[in-house]
C-alpha cells in the first residue's frame, strides 16, 4: 500500500526539493547576524545578551527616573521649609469687617490674601481720592479707611461692617478744627499697622478728643492684645486709665 519511497524523505520529490532550494535562498540581514553573534559572545564573556532592536538603556538611564523623583522630593522639601510662615491665613485679622471691606477683591487671587497686600496703603496712591472706597482694607484698622473729604462715597460704607461704619461716623463727628484736621489727616491715611493705629490714637489724644481716643484704644486693644506696647510713652499713663471694656 505504502510506497517504499515514502519512508525516505529524499524520495518525496527530488525535483521539487531541488527547485525549492534553488528558489528559496533568502538569508537574514547582516545586522541581525551581528546582533546574534554579539549576544553570543557577550554571553560567554559573562554579560547578558544584548539586543540592538531593543537596546538596553545605560545604567545612568535606568536610574534617571529615580534620580528625578528624588530631586523633585528634595526641592519640595526645601521650598516647604523656606516658605514664609506668615503666609498662613491670619484668622484674627480676617474679621468679617475686613472681608466686607474688600468688595472688589477677586476670589482666588492669592496676592490679595498675602499680608503685604492686605496692609498695602492704596489710598496713598494718586488714584485713591477718585476711588476712596477702593482703598484696600487692612484687616481691622481698615474699618477706618475713609477719607474725611469723601462724604460722597460714604454710602459705600453701608455695605461695610459696623466697625467701619462707626469709624466713619466718628470721623463725621469730628470738629473741623486745625487739630481735627490733623486728626482727619491722620485718619485719612490708611491706618493699617499697629504703629499707625497708635499714631492716630496719639493724634486724637493730643487734639483733646479723648472720648474718641478712648474708643480707638479699646478697639485697638480688642484686636491687638499688645496694643499698649505700640503707644508712645506719653500715652501710657492715660492708656492705663482706660478700661478694656467700658461695660465691665
Amino acid at each position, binding site marked *: 500500500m505504502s510506497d517504499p519511497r515514502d519512508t525516505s*524523505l529524499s524520495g518525496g520529490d527530488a525535483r*521539487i526539493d531541488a527547485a525549492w532550494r534553488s528558489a528559496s535562498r533568502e538569508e*537574514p*540581514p547582516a545586522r541581525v547576524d551581528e546582533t*546574534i*553573534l554579539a549576544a553570543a*559572545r557577550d*554571553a560567554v564573556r559573562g554579560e547578558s545578551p544584548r539586543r540592538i532592536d531593543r537596546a538596553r538603556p545605560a545604567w545612568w538611564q535606568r536610574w534617571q527616573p529615580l534620580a528625578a523623583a528624588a530631586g523633585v522630593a528634595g526641592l519640595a522639601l526645601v521650598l516647604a521649609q523656606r516658605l514664609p510662615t506668615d503666609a498662613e491665613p491670619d484668622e484674627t485679622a480676617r474679621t468679617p469687617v475686613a472681608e466686607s471691606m474688600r468688595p472688589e477683591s477677586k476670589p482666588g487671587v492669592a496676592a490679595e490674601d498675602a499680608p503685604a497686600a492686605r496692609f498695602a496703603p492704596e489710598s496713598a496712591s494718586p488714584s485713591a481720592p477718585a476711588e476712596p472706597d477702593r482703598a484696600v482694607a487692612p484687616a481691622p484698622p481698615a474699618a477706618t479707611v475713609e477719607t474725611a473729604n469723601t462724604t460722597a462715597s460714604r454710602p459705600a460704607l453701608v455695605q461695610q461692617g459696623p466697625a467701619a461704619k462707626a469709624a466713619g461716623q466718628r470721623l463725621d463727628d469730628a470738629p473741623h478744627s486745625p487739630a481735627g484736621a490733623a486728626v482727619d489727616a491722620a485718619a485719612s491715611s490708611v491706618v493699617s499697622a499697629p504703629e499707625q493705629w497708635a499714631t492716630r490714637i496719639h493724634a486724637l489724644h493730643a487734639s483733646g478728643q479723648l472720648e474718641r481716643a478712648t474708643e480707638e484704644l479699646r478697639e485697638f486693644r480688642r484686636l491687638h492684645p499688645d496694643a499698649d506696647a505700640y503707644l508712645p510713652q506719653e500715652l501710657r499713663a492715660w492708656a492705663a486709665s482706660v478700661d478694656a471694656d467700658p461695660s465691665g
Partner: protein
Amino acid sequence: MHATVPGESDGDEALMLAYGSGDARAFEHLYARHKGPTYRYFLRHTSDRGAAEELHQDLWLRVVRSRARYRADARFATWLYTLARHRLVDHWRRNGGDRFESVDEHDGDSADAGDGFVANETLDPLRCAMNAETGARLLDALAGVPAAQRDAFLLHVEAGLTLAEIAGLAGAPVETIKTRLRYAYRRLRAALEDLR
C-alpha cells in the same frame, strides 16, 4: 591541537556543547550553518520579512540563553526547530495568524494525495525550470498550503529533518506527517503543471 577546538567539520551537537563551555567560535560555526534555514522557516510561515527577522533573532537568542542547559540527547536541529516552532506558535497567538491545526482529514482525497507524493515522471519540465518563475510559483504555492502541511514541508526541505523527527516535533504520528507532506508536494506540483 585542533581536535580540542570544534570547527566547521564538527557536528552540530559538538559545536553546541563547545559553545556551552564558553567557545564563542563554535557558536559562529553553528549559526552560519543554520541561519538561512531558520530564517526561511519563519519567512515562509509568516510571509513577512520583519516578523521573520524578529522571530529568527529571538530564536537564536534563546539558543544563546539555553547554552548551559543543552544536552546532546537528540539532534541539535530537532532541538533548534522545536524552539523555532514554539516561537512561531507564540507569534501567531499574539498577532493572529495561522495555526498548526490538522487539515489532513479535509484536504481532498488521501488516495490522490498518496499518488502525488510519489515522484512524478511527468514533471520533467521541472528539470529545466529552475528559473525565477518556477521559484516564484513554488513560493506562492507554499504560501497557500495549510500551516501544518507547510510546516512539514519546511522541516523536511529546509531543516533536513527526518519523518520521525518531524513527527516527534509536531507531536503527530509519522503517518500523519507523511500525509501532510503528500498534500504539500501535490500542491507544489500543481502549481507547476502548466510548465510542462
